[in-house]
């Protein structure tokens, strides 16, 4: 009964109700987007880091993975030390370098990863087979397109270029054995993977690597392993998933703050809109409400009916806003995904059911709160005086 009356009241002023629902829907869409932005980016990055189960990254002291050309010496020795630890399940040494694929007088520059195919966690093979032989190379789709190459083709690949002499060094003929999707590289980045030993020889960085990725048998032992590493490997920095997340938070903290501010603004706008609408609606129906009270309708009934009006507006707007929010989030995600250097797999706006429920829940709570004040005012009207005023008016 109360719900029927509340809906009838909203239907009475259709244009006004539609506008209010539209306003709440836009506020809800913005709120959903901001909740998705604040949590999605983090979750997406965490999922990416853990996608192959490696919980630790070991880099040259004071550097981030591939941030500089610094490398770790004595890679074989370090690998053996790491593999000897019972807590460590898998060790993947990686060397990063730029390589030039020679095509007549011109060349294509690509980012190369020197990997051990049996333990690598940098790419997923999409076609062909892994680069297990020393003269093989794995490439991504962008690279194959740029080079006009296919799986099975042989490429002339050089590791260095002297701009003064215009000569290449470390040249090799490598056979494209497979096509892969590289997990941590930016969209559109030309990338290849070469057996570690081959790339070390090509770049004259014998027994050096840029990074080790380490997978633990029991992730809860991470602190123990880290303590041991600090003592046993003093020239190496240990970056856990939590450390990487903290650095991402630091670098992209701006977006989290922006999402908090805009989310709060959306909530306030939704709240104000519903409050204003319900207040005006109640002011217009003062006579009607007083008559209802005079014929014996309880205060609680009046309060519930008015609160229901605000709640109905908020829920309808929030549900519409969820759909709208998903569309705008997709659009905003395409803008932010073009950040240079950002892994293609990162989503700034990651949809999680929890985010949608949070947005709808917050706006519904706002709708209930927004209806409370006008409801309380309407239920507290003095009956005799208001009836007289309405009659005179």
């Amino acid at each position, binding site marked *: 009964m109360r719900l029927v009356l509340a809906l009838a009241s909203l239907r009475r002023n259709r244009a006004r109700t539609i*506008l209010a629902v539209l306003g709440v829907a836009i506020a809800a869409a913005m709120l959903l987007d901001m909740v998705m932005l604040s949590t999605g980016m983090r979750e997406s990055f965490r999922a990416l880091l853990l996608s192959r189960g490696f919980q630790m990254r070991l880099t*040259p002291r004071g550097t981030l993975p591939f941030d500089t050309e610094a490398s770790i010496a004595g890679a074989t020795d370090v690998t053996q030390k790491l593999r000897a630890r019972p807590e460590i399940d898998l060790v993947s040494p990686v060397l990063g370098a730029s390589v030039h694929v020679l095509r007549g007088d011109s060349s294509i520059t690509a980012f190369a990863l020197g990997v051990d195919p049996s333990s690598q966690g940098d790419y997923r093979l999409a076609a062909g087979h892994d680069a297990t032989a020393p003269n093989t190379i794995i490439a991504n789709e962008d690279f194959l397109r740029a080079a006009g190459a296919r799986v099975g083709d042989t490429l002339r690949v050089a590791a260095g270029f002297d701009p003064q002499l*215009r000569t290449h060094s470390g040249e090799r003929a490598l056979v494209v054995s497979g096509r892969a999707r590289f997990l941590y590289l930016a969209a559109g980045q030309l990338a290849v993977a070469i057996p570690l030993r081959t790339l070390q020889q090509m770049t004259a960085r014998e027994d050096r690597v840029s990074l080790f990725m380490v997978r633990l048998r029991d992730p809860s032992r991470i602190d123990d392993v880290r303590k041991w590493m600090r003592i046993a490997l003093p020239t190496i920095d240990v970056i856990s998933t939590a450390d990487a997340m903290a650095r991402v938070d630091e*670098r992209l903290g701006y977006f989290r703050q922006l999402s908090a501010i805009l989310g709060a603004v959306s909530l306030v706008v939704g709240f104000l809109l519903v409050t204003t609408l319900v207040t005006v609606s109640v002011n*217009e129906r003062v006579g009607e409400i007083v008559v209802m009270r005079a014929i014996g309708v309880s205060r609680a009934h009046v309060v519930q009916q008015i609160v229901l009006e605000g709640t109905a507006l908020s829920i309808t707007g929030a549900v519409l806003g969820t759909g709208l929010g998903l569309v705008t989030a997709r659009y*905003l995600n395409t803008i932010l995904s073009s950040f240079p250097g950002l892994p293609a797999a990162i989503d700034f706006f990651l949809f999680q059911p929890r985010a949608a429920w949070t947005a709808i829940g917050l706006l519904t709570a706002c709708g209930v709160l927004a209806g409370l004040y006008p409801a309380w005012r309407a239920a507290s009207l003095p009956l005799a005086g208001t009836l007289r005023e309405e009659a005179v008016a």
Partner: protein
Amino acid sequence: MVALLLALQLRTITIDQRLAADAHVRLGDTVVVSASPSTGGDSLIVAAIIGRRADPSEIARSDYRVHLHLDQLQRLIGYGDRVDRFAIATHGDSTADAAVHSINDAAFGFRAYRSRDIAVETSETFAVVSRFHRAIGVITIVASAVFLLCILLLKVDERRRDVAALRLLGISRRSVMLTVVLEAAFVSVIGSGVGVVIGWVTSIAVNWHYQARYQTPLRFALVTGDIVLFAVSLSLVLGIVAGALAARRLVRTHPLVLLGR
């Protein structure tokens, strides 16, 4: 001071403010600089502490910056007589293109670029952020427009009894409509004026917060004349449209109906 240090064969280094604060280093202190943590390095005197420039590309970069004498850095990192780039100043903008062509045609193994071309390349991050801000701005404008339209419709709708009274007194529909539209326009302008002040105060708070957070003199939020003009104009147009729509409906309804009779 520096001349004295040079005379004493002590080389100098400049470090950035953040490094000085984090490492508790002061002017005149001696620091040891090496190419890698495991090797010994050179002892250098801190000759200057430099602040960050208002450069967007330095935002969110947490790495420290130091400046060394070129020959010393070359020796420290085993770079030989090599440099990564040369910066060249030309006599005015018009000569820059000629200089670029001349170097590219003549110099073997070099490639010259105009500073502004490099700026376009390196500012891609900010172009993305800017596109994102613009998209958020459009959504905000749509939300504000709907909000404003709704509020003004309600405001005008509240005047139904006054409008009925004016109509019953014999005031023409045109005059009543004009009055209501003027009132809506007035409310819009006053509201947008208050909004501009709030925006201006917010921009001060935003700049204060982010300048402190990123330790940069860069200004993050600017309230320009164009922005103020756009906000006030949009608000005014919406006010007039909302006022006209609501007033049109009111003046077309019989005054007694407006009074609920």
